[in-house]
């Protein structure tokens, strides 16, 4: 489809890619041609650390239903967290 639509956000966390665990600093979300998933288009998510290089990336390619269910599941999981557990932003790494 080549909509070029792309969401870019800054994140704090870790991800495990082909090079092992790395600090995740950026996420890109878009709906376009997947590399591996056998469909014309998919919801694509890249969890990245561009400072460490292009290979520090975890890629997800999901059909639209799966992407929505994943997003809903994330919200449900966060909503179920007991109140006595902190839900604030993680402290930035030095």
């Amino acid at each position: 489809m080549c909509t070029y639509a792309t969401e870019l956000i800054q994140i704090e966390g870790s991800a495990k890619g082909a090079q092992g665990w790395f600090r995740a600093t950026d996420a890109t979300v878009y709906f376009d041609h997947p590399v591996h998933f056998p469909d014309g288009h998919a919801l694509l998510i890249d969890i990245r650390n561009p400072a460490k290089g292009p290979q520090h990336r975890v890629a997800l390619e999901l059909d639209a239903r799966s992407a929505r269910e994943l997003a809903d599941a994330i919200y449900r999981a966060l909503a179920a967290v007991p109140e006595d557990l902190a839900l604030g932003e993680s402290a930035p790494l030095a």
Partner: protein
Amino acid sequence: MTVDLYARTTSLQGFGGDEIEAYVAVPESVTGFGSVVVIHHMPGFDEATKENTRRFAAHGYAAVCPNLYHREAPGAAADDAAATARALGGVPDERLVGDVAGAMSYLRSLPGSNGKVGVIGYCSGGRQSVLAACSLDLDAAVDCYGAFVTVDPPADRPFRFTSLVDKLPSLACPLLGLFGEEDQYPSPEQTDDLQRRLDELGKDFTRHSYPGAGHAFFAVDRPSYRPEVATEAWGEIWEFFGRHLGSGK
């Protein structure tokens, strides 16, 4: 009939004198061959694009595909490089033109070249093929389903380009456009608009819009592949490049 070829990864001097990676395929035992710059799609300098590059050599053309994402991700896997380039806003138009110019010089310097060079691009490369044809001394250009040629991308997209409407008067070579009627990027209305604009400008434009095909109907590794349409469209490419670039076959 196809001919033997050799192919390898090489480098060439692109925009700003930068040495960038490229994939070259050259027909063997052929002289006086025309040449083709292959512009890869947004997923990058991948296996399918290299296969297309070899296909041109098998049909008697020297072909080179510059890695447009080499600067952002030297040595990276094609998908990682594409993700990096996308997050950075894609390839700036000025840099694309410089990289295609470098690829043209590379091809014209090959022993056996007849000096004629065409360009072909797929998907995002379709728009970039038109951009190159409006900017450089090319002999023929093919736009395979390039979006945002006559309309700007929405302003909220991170990509650093606009439509090519202002550049179309500079189109200096024959252009072949290959589109799917079920595509929305570009839509049939947009390809109609391109046809109308180029007709008004008196440009040499041949368009084929195929029913039953959407975007990326050439892509053999994707569900969008439409073998009957792709076979017919490849035939149009061979006829078009044969007429404008010649071939040593």
